[in-house]
């Protein structure tokens, strides 16, 4: 990771602050932990052998499978498989990719996660957010 704040920051950072912040932070930030761990020179530390496969299903407006925030290693090949019970278009923002969905038929989006950031995968007609990809 190329962010390297001045070392004096370490001296400045009071113990109390660290305690307060990590107290708040410990609850719900697995993604951020993965973020700092996975950005080293060897990106193969996480389970991304040939490509990360993310599967999500929609039925009766309910989203199941890999919904929520899904961490992805930067640059890694990714395949998102979407299965919907109604016809719609799945749109991945930022990457600007579309997959036409037919009822019951799994549709795939395959791409390399080259753009860092947080992106929503959304059903165009229903405006349902299927998942958010966190690349970084």
């Amino acid at each position, binding site marked *: 990771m190329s962010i390297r704040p001045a070392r004096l*920051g370490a001296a400045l950072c009071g113990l109390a602050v660290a305690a*307060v*912040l990590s107290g708040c*932070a410990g609850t719900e930030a697995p*993604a951020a932990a993965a973020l700092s761990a996975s950005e080293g020179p060897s990106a193969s530390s996480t389970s991304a052998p040939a490509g990360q496969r993310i599967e999500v299903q929609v039925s009766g407006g309910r989203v199941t499978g890999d919904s929520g925030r899904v961490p992805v290693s930067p640059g890694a090949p990714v395949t998102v498989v979407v299965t919907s019970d109604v016809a719609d278009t799945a749109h991945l923002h930022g990457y600007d990719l579309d997959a036409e969905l037919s009822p019951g038929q799994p549709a795939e989006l395959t791409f390399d996660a080259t753009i860092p*950031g947080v992106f929503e995968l959304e059903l165009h007609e229903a405006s349902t957010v299927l998942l958010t990809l966190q690349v*970084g």
Partner: protein
Amino acid sequence: MTVLAHGVGSRTDLPLPLGLALYGAGAAILLSFAILLLFWRTPRLGGPGSGAALPLPVQRAVDSGRVRRGLQAVALAVAVLVTAVAVAGPDDPDRNLAPWVLYVTFWVGLVPASLLLGPVWRVVNPLRLLHRGLRVVLASAPGAGRLPALGLWPATVPLLVFLWLELVLPGRAEPSTVAAFLLGYAVVHLGLSLWFGEEWFASGDGFEVYSTVLARLSPWGRRDDGRLVLRNPLANATVAPVQPGLAAVVVVLLGSTAFDGLSRTVFWQTGPGAANDVVSGTLGLLTMVALVAVLYVVGSRLSGRLAGQPVHVQPRRYAGTVVAIAIGYTVAHYFSLMMLDGQTPWILASNPFGLAGVDLFGTYGNVVDLTAVSADVIALVQVGAVVAGHVVGVTLAHERALLSARRARASDQLPLVVVMVLFTVGGLGLLFGF
């Protein structure tokens, strides 16, 4: 259409790395005490008579009614074009210029423009030009006498309405929504300006007030002898008038930006905001504004009580110092939107009405480069902006305390400084995404 925060956009920022958030918070806290204990003990930022005067021809040009009306006419032409595109342009928000111009170029762009150039929207506000036209028909302004007492309070309403539209309303990016907002905004404020007179815009036009409040930290000011001057932005912020309602405006800005940050966290998206509807969004926005308001009022009043000063004037007196923290928040939240999705309007301007075969600047086929600014740079700018805003805020509050009591003790300022630290650590926490 997209349910992302802040109106439009194809992406949101990655959570801040934990280490960077901690360094930022630690630096903010330590610098606060350094400012309190080690900085000057008598006011020294410069009073209303400070600053280097601009050459008279420059001042005459800037103050000239003809120049201002010319600039207002240009702004009006752009506003009419954007409204026309919102009404008659492409239906797809991703291909329509209007939402991008309103939420990114204008609303976010107003921040750097006002910080660098001063209160720009006051100078080019196209509604002022329309008002002058209407005043020929209706000459009197029966409510003008009431404006000074209202101060900036009226501006909190349009600001809250706009921020609710930007951050809460699901259809915010639809061109029809943008058209309705722009036309409604113009009609309402022109009507109110007929009742209150042209100075209504300085009091109640949310965009003009936003620009003017931001410009308190610009290097351009007006000296007590009326000359336009270039001076230290901190001195500018110190001598800016203490207006009724300024605290409310600042609290609305800070609270809404905090809600923008909150709405991107996993906590919000899977917890209180999981429904992602108008009710949860409205409650979230109002809760964050109320939280900021309570913290600020309690902190500033407590500082006043310790210093033995009348407590009711305290929130107003110190509001100008919190502007710096609000600016830091705003830069942290909107920097990447401006740099990345801010490219979109320039592409769409090449064919505003989406007609086949039109490509005025040859850029219509371009694609936004979402890697133009790296994630590391964004994270550094975010932490840098929040910490810098905090340091400026605490410094201004320190100077303000010395101005209001010559022998102000550092300990009297502590409650307000603690609140500022809470704002900053909380802001970093939202960027970290707890």
